[in-house]
């Protein structure tokens, strides 16, 4: 739903879609509520939240491809008491058992009757049912909680069955009344956003309202599966401050304006804290200016003061969401709205006209000037205007989007009026809202500009204006800004190459690198910490396209490290060897360039492993160093064919890693272009010069397995992009190159000078620092909540799954001899629970011992003597 909305003063909503040249009335079903007059609207791709003229809040949900659906789940549990009859299960459970109907973990009582439709806007799609298997959906086990098997056996004393029921949201294209926070409070302002908060699940929405009591509320749990949300959460603002208005951006940022005319920015907004933690005061534009209206785009914020003066907030980046200063834009407006693409629309009550800002591009987010859209209306509410502006919404680039409005220079791109005989109703527009969401907007529109506008003209017989050919000049310079690190790069792009160049815009694939944790044990590096702290508040980066394919968000391989564009950042792969408490290596051991996935955990496998370890200890580990029979004199090279993106074309090339035996420092990569012409190019890359190597998504050909190598000294921070023939080839090469990068860097730097950090999506990185600037950043495997480095050289991490991990200091020595078996004794375990059962026999036999009675010999159905907290997983000391 890529629409611009305007609200007429008679309470109707009109929308325009990018490829249409008219505003249409938003039709809605009036089954439940008749004739809602809307005063204000805030939009997201799949719904609108609007305020009616009597200051109530209404939700309007679009029916997209499929209705929103939610599955309720409960588990039915039964126990068997009859030892002889295998099938005599009873609904009566032991007092220590879980309820008859419970959650999967058994900690909640969830009888089927307890599931109610959240509101009348939902309906049950199915009745309760369970997954069919051979045994009527039952799974058997010795006891709760234990391993469940589909087949009944003699030792099956309990069983459970998963019941499911689906409900679907049914109320679309209607205004749904949402309760006010309290009876006495009415709604003054509403703003929704947050669907691009990085790593937030798809369908999430932040809904903020300002009540008539000057309070700010956040709606809890608004999402696809709960469009109405649960309840209002009062968000405390500073004392004695009344809130007048709020604006929330797609990536979740929130600014509010107070009754004093000040702007406050919400800080600490992240995936886990969608409503933030604190406030930061923004200086007013001028000493007398009091902000009345504010609107957040992506990299721009616009506000109006109480006199209608327009200000633009400059310097906003992901790292600096506050921006630097207000810039006065000489004009007077009554309302303002900024889109996700940073396009600004304003409304002037006096002139009763809508303006949009033209000349907004990546370099100049404040634009050049205002352009009027002359609106004339007719009775059937068909508002026509000719907007030749082809707004290209750059896919995936969310930092800014070009929104180049190419036909600005055309005179008289006027509104066409169709039915003049109809009485013209003057509508006063009291609110505008403009949003662009749809990434379907092909960049190719740029080329199609002329045909489109021609056809528009043809369609409209009464057209009085002939469009001049589109001024293509505009396209010849498409300038890009690296939003991160204030790194500006410019590229002149020939129109012919325009499409090809969009490939490079993939650059903007951003990853949120909100740093939630920085730990540094090395005091000399405190300055670095500050450097990093600057980015601590940096919030959100994401990819626009994620809104449609949010599944990617969780996809590890899709993540780009693009937020690191500061020249001084160096990124590399670290050889991290993580052990979990079970002492096993993670399958994705980053030492290897080979993927090994599944691990069979059966007895015979473990026997072989322990025997092998014993064998190695017996045969050589305990024996003093005896030299290895051969000198490591083999220089082996690896050579494979790739395609490289060279002058916007994919050209075949050969990549060759030459592995020198003398020193890892002498390892090099050769790139040989296989060009048809004679200018055969060959480039040598030293591993030391590599800054980052990572998978790369080509804008035009997303399915291609590409990777980019960023060099430390490359101009513009542009990567060399290679396209492999298969995903496995890509992964192999990335790993291979990463390993060498790591080895080279570890020769020069030790982990003692490293900082670690965890991004809010659970990725963790190591920094290396030199001369107070980070020189080397490497990603560790796994997802972590927190990692901390101890002065003993070990790094400890708390995994997202609550498990404890530690990293052996990958110093030089370990790196060289990492082949040796890691001592199992180095494993650390925490959270081990010892379980004992009081046993009659034992207590009798141990009468003399007052402590006797509890014994390690539990019942067969009991937990393991040592287990984790839930008793499900066996643990040993």
């Amino acid at each position, binding site marked *: 739903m890529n629409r611009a909305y305007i609200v007429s003063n008679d309470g109707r909503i009109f929308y325009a879609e990018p490829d249409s040249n008219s505003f249409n009335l938003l039709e809605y079903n009036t089954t439940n509520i008749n004739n809602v007059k809307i005063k204000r609207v805030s939009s997201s791709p799949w719904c609108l939240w609007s305020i009616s003229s009597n200051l109530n809040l209404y939700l309007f949900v679009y029916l997209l491809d499929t209705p929103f659906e939610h599955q309720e789940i409960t588990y039915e549990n039964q126990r068997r008491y009859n030892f002889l009859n295998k099938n005599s299960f009873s609904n009566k459970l032991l007092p220590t058992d879980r309820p008859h109907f419970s959650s999967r973990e058994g900690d909640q009582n969830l009888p089927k009757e307890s599931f109610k439709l959240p509101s009348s806007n939902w309906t049950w799609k199915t009745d309760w049912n369970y997954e069919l298997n051979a045994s009527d959906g039952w799974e058997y086990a010795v006891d709760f909680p234990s391993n469940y098997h589909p087949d009944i056996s003699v030792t099956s004393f309990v069983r459970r069955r998963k019941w499911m029921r689906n409900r679907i949201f049914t109320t679309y294209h209607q205004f749904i009344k949402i309760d006010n926070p309290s009876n006495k409070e009415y709604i003054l302002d509403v703003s929704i956003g947050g669907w691009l908060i990085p790593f937030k699940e798809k369908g999430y929405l932040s809904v903020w309202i300002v009540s008539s009591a000057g309070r700010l509320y956040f709606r809890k749990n608004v999402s696809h599966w709960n469009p109405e949300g649960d309840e209002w959460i009062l968000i405390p603002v500073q004392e004695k401050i009344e809130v007048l208005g709020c604006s929330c951006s797609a990536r979740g940022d929130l600014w509010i304006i107070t009754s004093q005319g000040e702007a406050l920015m919400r800080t600490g907004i992240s995936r886990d804290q969608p409503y933030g933690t604190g406030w930061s005061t923004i200086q007013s534009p001028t000493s007398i200016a009091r902000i009345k209206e504010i609107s957040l785009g992506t990299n721009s914020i616009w506000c109006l003061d109480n006199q209608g003066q327009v200000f633009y907030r400059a310097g906003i980046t992901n790292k600096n969401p506050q921006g630097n200063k207000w810039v006065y834009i000489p004009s007077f407006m009554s309302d303002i709205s900024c889109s996700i693409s940073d396009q600004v629309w304003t409304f002037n009550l006096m002139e009763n006209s809508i303006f949009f800002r033209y000349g907004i591009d990546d370099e100049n987010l404040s634009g050049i000037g205002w352009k009027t859209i002359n609106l004339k209306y007719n009775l059937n509410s068909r508002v026509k205007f000719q907007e030749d502006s082809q707004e290209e919404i750059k896919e995936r680039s969310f930092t800014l989007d070009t929104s180049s409005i190419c036909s600005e220079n055309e005179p008289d791109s006027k509104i066409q009026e169709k039915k003049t005989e109809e009485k013209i109703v003057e509508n006063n527009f009291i609110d505008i809202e403009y949003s662009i969401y749809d990434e379907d907007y092909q960049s190719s529109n740029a080329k199609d500009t002329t045909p489109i506008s021609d056809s528009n003209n043809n369609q409209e017989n009464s057209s009085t204006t002939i469009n001049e050919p589109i001024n293509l000049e505009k396209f010849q310079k498409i300038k890009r800004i690296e939003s991160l690190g204030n790194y500006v790069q410019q590229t002149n792009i020939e129109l012919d190459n325009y499409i090809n160049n969009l490939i490079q815009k993939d650059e903007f694939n951003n990853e949120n690198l909100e740093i939630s944790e920085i730990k540094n044990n090395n005091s000399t590096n405190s300055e670095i910490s500050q450097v990093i702290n600057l980015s601590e508040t940096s919030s959100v980066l994401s990819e626009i396209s994620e809104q449609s394919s949010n599944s990617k968000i969780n996809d590890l391989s899709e993540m780009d490290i693009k937020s690191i564009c500061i020249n001084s950042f160096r990124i590399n792969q670290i050889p991290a060897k993580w052990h979990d408490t079970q002492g*096993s*290596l993670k*399958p994705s*051991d980053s030492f*290897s*360039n*080979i993927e*090994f*996935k*599944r*691990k*069979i955990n059966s*007895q*015979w*496998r473990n*026997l*072989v*492993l322990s*025997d*092998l*370890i*014993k*064998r*190695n200890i*017996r*045969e*050589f580990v305990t*024996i003093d*160093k*005896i*030299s*290895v*029979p*051969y000198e*490591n004199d*083999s220089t*082996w090279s*690896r*050579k494979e064919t790739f395609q490289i993106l060279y002058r916007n074309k994919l050209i075949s090339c050969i990549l060759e890693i030459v592995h020198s035996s003398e020193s890892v420092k002498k390892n090099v990569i050769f790139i040989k272009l296989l060009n048809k012409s004679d200018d055969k190019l060959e480039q040598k890359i030293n591993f030391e010069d590599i800054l980052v190597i990572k998978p790369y998504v080509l804008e035009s050909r997303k399915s291609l397995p590409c990777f980019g190598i960023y060099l430390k000294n490359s101009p513009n921070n542009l990567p060399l992009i290679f396209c492999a023939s298969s995903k496995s080839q890509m992964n*192999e090469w990335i790993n*291979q190159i990463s*390993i060498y990068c790591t080895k080279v860097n570890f020769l020069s730097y030790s982990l003692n000078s490293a900082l670690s950090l965890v991004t809010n999506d659970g990725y963790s990185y190591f920094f290396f620092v030199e001369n107070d600037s980070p020189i080397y950043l490497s990603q560790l495997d796994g997802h972590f909540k927190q990692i901390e480095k101890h002065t003993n050289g070990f790094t400890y991490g708390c995994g997202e799954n609550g498990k404890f991990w530690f990293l052996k200091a990958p110093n030089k020595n370990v790196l060289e001899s990492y*082949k*040796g*078996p890691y001592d199992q004794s180095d494993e650390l375990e925490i959270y081990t629970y010892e379980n004992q059962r009081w046993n009659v026999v034992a207590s009798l036999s141990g009468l003399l011992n007052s402590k006797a009675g509890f014994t390690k010999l539990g019942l067969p159905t009991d937990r393991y003597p040592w287990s984790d907290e839930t008793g499900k997983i066996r643990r040993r000391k």
Partner: protein
Amino acid sequence: MAEDKEILREIWDGKIPICFKLAENEWRSSEPEEIYLMVPRQTYFPLILDKVQKHFCECVSQSKKNNEIWLDFDGLALKWHYPVGLLFDLYANQGQESVSNIPWTLNVHFDEFPEDLLHCGSREIVESFFLSTIKEADALKHKGKIINEMQKKDHKQLWAGIQSDKFDQFWSINKKLMETIEGEGFKSIPFRIYQQDKPFIQKLFEPVTESGRKQTLKDLLDFVFGEELNTRVILIQGVQPSLETPIQWLSEHLSYPDNFLHICVK
């Protein structure tokens, strides 16, 4: 698919400390100092004997110093075309708990090359022997499809991985040879059963029965020996796997680089 890297790594890392002594009858004067080497189990002797040859060549009579050397253990000439680990398990390994032959003491000969031993003029001969064994193994596993689809450089990389003891280099190619269709095993398991003083046994054996049951090590041994196996010790890669271990898994993980599962029965 060989996916259990932990196992593969331990297998690959296996080394045997070997003490090389010059055979007594070849001393030119006094006893030369022995030389100790830590020899990977997965390699072949000709790949590691350069150092030994250099070490001893000045200690033997001038006429023989450029002879091809050969090794014996307790009077048994060692076949160079068996992997080192196999030779150790077959002749010297006294069972899982024993350390009696560690380090393993071998006699080095420059003279009297045994007639029943294959000559090994150069590393290239070992390489072609190795590759032909791999091809044989793949013929059993995949009817030779995978090895034949590989390029020459892949073959080279396999060999280079062994020569320079590089796990990643070797396994990045070898994993392709260990691929199976999901849920199915190899066509048949490339295995050889060795007993002292007997030629090795090699038969066709499928990892999954027609009824779909996964065959175990026990099934294989029963198939080869019938009932007579009771008290024998089984050693693969220096360990005694449980008889219940699926043979497919063993083949994927405990095979030597030549892709054969070499089983010692003692």
